[in-house]
């Protein structure tokens, strides 16, 4: 299977590449339109700050390419957030794939949320063989609000969307590549969608 990780200069993507390697898949890093378009599966990662990451996407034209992709696409962490309408982080527009906004956690909780939390109300084949309330590793200061595209929720001060889906587009707030065996199962499921 031809898996491409979108490489637009955002953060630690080696971990994701290694996670696929542990599953026996040699995932390619690329920012080329043709390479991404021809992939069987596309991973859209992201670590860092939303407005500067969005600026990098715009520079390379990837912000118009990604929403047009037809194969399964998985946004991870900031990647998922950039697939939403807009983010309070740097007050940037996103790609508008998921019809939801990204907000900052209130100071009633420690920010960033850092560590293992459960994912609840699982509603997709992406979570096949993953139990309800499974633990995933999260590290983030901003969150997507609940909406009807939500396929998993988590609770940190209040409930928020920890995974989203629209058609062939999936997004997860947690890091499957750092979430032990359950995370590996999720990546395997994504390959089998």
């Amino acid at each position, binding site marked *: 299977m031809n898996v491409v990780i979108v490489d637009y200069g955002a*953060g*630690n993507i*080696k*971990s994701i590449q*290694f*996670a696929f*390697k*542990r599953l026996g898949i040699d995932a390619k890093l690329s920012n080329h339109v043709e390479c991404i378009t021809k992939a069987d599966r596309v991973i859209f990662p992201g*670590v*860092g*700050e939303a407005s500067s990451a969005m600026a990098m996407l715009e520079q390379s034209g990837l912000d118009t390419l990604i929403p047009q992709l037809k194969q399964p696409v998985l946004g991870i962490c900031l990647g998922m957030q950039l697939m939403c309408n807009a983010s309070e982080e740097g007050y940037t527009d996103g790609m508008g794939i998921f019809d939801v906004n990204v907000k900052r956690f209130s*100071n009633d909780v*420690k*920010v*960033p*949320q*850092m*560590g*293992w*939390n*459960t994912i609840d109300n699982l509603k997709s084949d992406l979570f096949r063989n993953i139990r309800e309330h499974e*633990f995933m*590793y*999260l*590290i*983030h*200061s901003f969150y997507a609000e609940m909406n009807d595209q939500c396929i998993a929720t988590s*609770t*940190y001060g209040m409930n928020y969307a920890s995974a989203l889906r629209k058609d062939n587009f999936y997004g997860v707030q947690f*890091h499957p*590549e*750092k*979430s*032990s*065996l359950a*995370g*590996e199962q999720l990546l395997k499921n994504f390959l089998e969608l």
Partner: protein
Amino acid sequence: MLRKRIIPCLDIKNGRTVKGINFKGLRDAGDPVELAKQYAHFGADELVFLDISATIEERKTMRDMVLKVAEQINIPFTVGGGISSVEDVAQLLHCGADKISINSSAVTSPNLINELSSKFGSQCVVVAIDAKQVDGEWMVHLAGGTIPTTINLFDWAKEVAYRGAGEILFTSMNNDGTKLGFANPALAQLSKLVNIPIIASGGAGSTEHFVDAFKIGHADAALAASVFHFGEISISDLKKELNKNQIPVRL
């Protein structure tokens, strides 16, 4: 609900673990990758690798080690020790480290915290603080606790949070190595003072000490080295005990 984290810390020199590690079933106790795998298997929530190398050559070996750990370990890990520039951090993150921790370099050039958090994001910037209580006041110490400063622990904690640190790793020099428990009153004060996660370090000797660090010290995570390395406390038993004591952990 977010769980409390248990973090084993491994000291690394020239790409190998140091301090006698007495772990049953390990083929090579000096191999950080094998030890890390074992800890991940028994439920460690994260790992910290502290580079205590003295030479540039040894530091290069550290980057190779980071790459190998990232290749084989499926939980997050932090790398600390001797990091003093944006370039150092870029290289370690590029090798697959999830977070980096800075200590003395943050005190000598506090702006490094701002630079790192704006370039790489707060989430990967851990500021480690070593402090000692002298005449009732908690003072920051440098270079593994050997050099005293005139900086107050709580003032410094507020400043590093303000400058963009994503987490504080607080080691009490008074407690470190004693196995008499963590510095819970100082931990509780830190946790109230800043709105970023606090990792407790220094003093772990028994399961009850971890319970206290979470219940009395309100720590978000607890770090220890020797009690885990010598098999005095097993991580899986520890987490079961914490769970029995109504402390939310990942089981």
